């Protein structure tokens, strides 16, 4: 049975800082994530190319070159340890043997460098969640579901240290919610559909972890909250909406931990800060160094309580200095050096707060990532009993904190954001208490949802 967190793991703001987690994760090679050192987590993807049987050798060459380049640079810069994340591309989940072969390639090179040069490296495998589109039979059975689990298990067996995913339960509905800035539908997608799917999926991933020794790490609401963030960044939707979606997404992402995930939560889920506050597990985060993958308004504040520091994703293309993944890796390594130096000198809280304060005035999405705000909201959030109640409360807490920060001159908001803030708050306040009533009121309006695929 799922364990529901009723209190936050952190109670004291002074303990809530980057590089240290209450429940660190120890890897096979001795690396401790959240054990006092902030490590870089490097992400990468292929340059423009097709992935087919015919191009597979070229695909492999790319992954080999990327990994070798990163390991070489880790050696040069004497990085104390690092994580490499492989996010499989859709054809690699559809053909699990491809994803597993890529994983093996990366793992083997990292282990070779570890043996030769004592560079500690770990691999996070993140199968692309292919449970979307017209051919999907069901969320929890059929070939899509089987391929995902097969990829997890195969990669874990081949030496991946961490298992993660950006699962898409509820995403078809959330895509609609984002376009219309429909906060009710967003809460439905995240805390009803998403939570329901997460429980099924993560029960399986945790089981694979127990069987293989790989760590069931975490699941980001990337397709939900980051989609909203990117649209807000283009001024397509209000930032207050995106900020609320971020906090609501924590309710969904927490479900992995309710059924046994151990962290580190994956990089592209900024809701990880809430996960860390509530569970005490370490998290990966991405900020300014991930500008290669998406611009954002949270470039500095994202590092405040991170245990891994990531670049999100970069194509294997050449920049003037060399291949782009190596460039990103170097940037992350220097960021981490600075943070770790401050840890050594006892200045980590000061550095955390400089990062937070430098961003939080300019954008509500940054404001709701402030460590103090995260802790306050988390403490209130865990008091709600069900996922639905938590979803509602998350949105309301976000709106409250944003409003009062604005009133107190701690947060600048455009005029047109303010009217959205009022309307959105009102909508959430008027949502029904009863879950069934809520589902009935929202579901009819969900064009893209096929409830049968969720056994609803």
């Amino acid at each position, binding site marked *: 049975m799922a364990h529901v967190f009723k209190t936050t793991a952190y109670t004291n703001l002074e303990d809530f800082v980057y590089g240290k987690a209450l429940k660190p994760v120890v890897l096979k090679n001795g690396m401790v994530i959240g054990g006092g050192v902030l490590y870089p987590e490097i992400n990468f*993807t*292929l*340059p*423009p*190319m*097709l*992935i087919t049987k015919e191009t597979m050798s070229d695909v492999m060459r790319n992954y080999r070159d990327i990994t070798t380049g990163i390991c070489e640079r880790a050696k040069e810069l004497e990085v104390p340890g690092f994580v490499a994340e492989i996010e499989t*591309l*859709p*054809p690699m989940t559809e053909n699990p043997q491809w994803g597993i072969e890529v994983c093996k390639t990366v793992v083997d090179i990292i282990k070779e460098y570890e043996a030769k040069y004592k560079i500690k490296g770990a691999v996070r495998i993140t199968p692309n969640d292919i449970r*979307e*589109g*017209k051919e999907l039979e069901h969320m929890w059975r059929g070939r899509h579901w089987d391929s995902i689990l097969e990829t997890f298990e195969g990669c874990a067996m081949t030496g991946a240290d961490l298992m993660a995913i950006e699962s898409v339960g509820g995403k078809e509905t959330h*895509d609609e919610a*984002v*376009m*219309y*800035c429909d906060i009710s539908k967003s809460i439905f997608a995240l805390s009803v559909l998403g939570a329901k799917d997460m429980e099924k999926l993560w029960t399986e991933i945790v089981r694979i972890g127990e069987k293989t020794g790989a760590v069931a790490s975490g699941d980001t609401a990337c397709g939900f909250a980051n*989609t909203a963030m990117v*649209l807000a960044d*283009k*001024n*397509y*939707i*209000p930032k207050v909406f995106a900020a609320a979606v971020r906090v609501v997404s924590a309710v969904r992402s927490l479900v992995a931990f309710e059924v046994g995930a151990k962290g580190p939560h994956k990089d592209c889920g900024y809701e990880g800060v809430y996960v860390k506050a509530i569970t005490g597990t370490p998290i990966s985060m991405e900020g300014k160094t991930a500008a290669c993958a998406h611009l954002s308004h949270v470039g500095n504040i994202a590092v405040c309580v991170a245990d891994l520091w990531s670049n999100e994703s970069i*194509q294997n293309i050449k920049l003037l200095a060399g291949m782009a993944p190596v460039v990103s890796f170097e940037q992350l390594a220097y960021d981490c050096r600075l943070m770790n130096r401050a840890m050594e000198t006892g200045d980590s809280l000061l550095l955390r707060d400089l990062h937070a304060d430098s961003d939080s005035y300019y954008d509500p999405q940054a404001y709701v990532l402030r460590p103090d705000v995260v802790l306050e909201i988390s403490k209130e959030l865990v008091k709600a009993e069900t996922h639905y109640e938590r979803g509602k409360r998350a949105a309301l807490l976000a709106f409250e904190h944003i409003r009062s920060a604005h009133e107190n001159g701690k947060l600048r908001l455009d005029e*047109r954001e303010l009217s*959205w803030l009022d309307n959105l708050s009102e909508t959430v306040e008027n949502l029904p208490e009863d879950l069934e009533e809520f589902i009935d009121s929202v579901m009819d309006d969900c064009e893209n949802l096929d409830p049968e695929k969720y056994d609803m």
Partner: protein
Amino acid sequence: MKILEDISLAIQKGKARDVKQLVMEALEMGITAQEILDKGLLDGMGKLGVRFKNNEVYVPEVLIAARALNNGTEILRERLVEEGVKPIGKVVIATVKGDLHDIGKNLVKMMLEGAGFEVVDLGTDVSEDEIIKAVQQENPQILALSALLTTTMTNQKVVIDALKEANLREKVKVMVGGAPVTQAFADEIGADGYAEDAATAAEVARSLI
């Protein structure tokens, strides 16, 4: 004319019921459907589109206006046929094979409809065969292709090659877009147009017909 201005304003405010009411009044006043469409409904969408491009309104506002627009054109439909008015152009839109990203395509669709195009949406993960079939059936002036991954953008080229193969390349203009796509890539694969984002997609489409 005051009533056309009112229609335009009602569109911009997304007031579907007002639009319906005003369009009926305008028809009763003897204004042609063509004029109501161009100087009322599409004028409103055009103005809203400019405000969207200038970051003055958000997507939901445009979508709500688009619904109001639909309300208006619904009423006009018969009369438009009688008057022999055609949409300014027809677009078939799709996210290419292997790519399930929907939102970018939907935003472009929204902007195109707002500009008066008729849009046939084939959805996501659409193979070149399905696209060829749609082009044959729908006979659009424009084919708009979206791709969000470095590993699917090449399928935009696959579609263009398939169009050539099927002797359809001359019959339709192809515009491409999506996060990893650039003007240089568009040129390289022989597309006719490239839209950097949804806000500029309608302009690009207009320039192609």
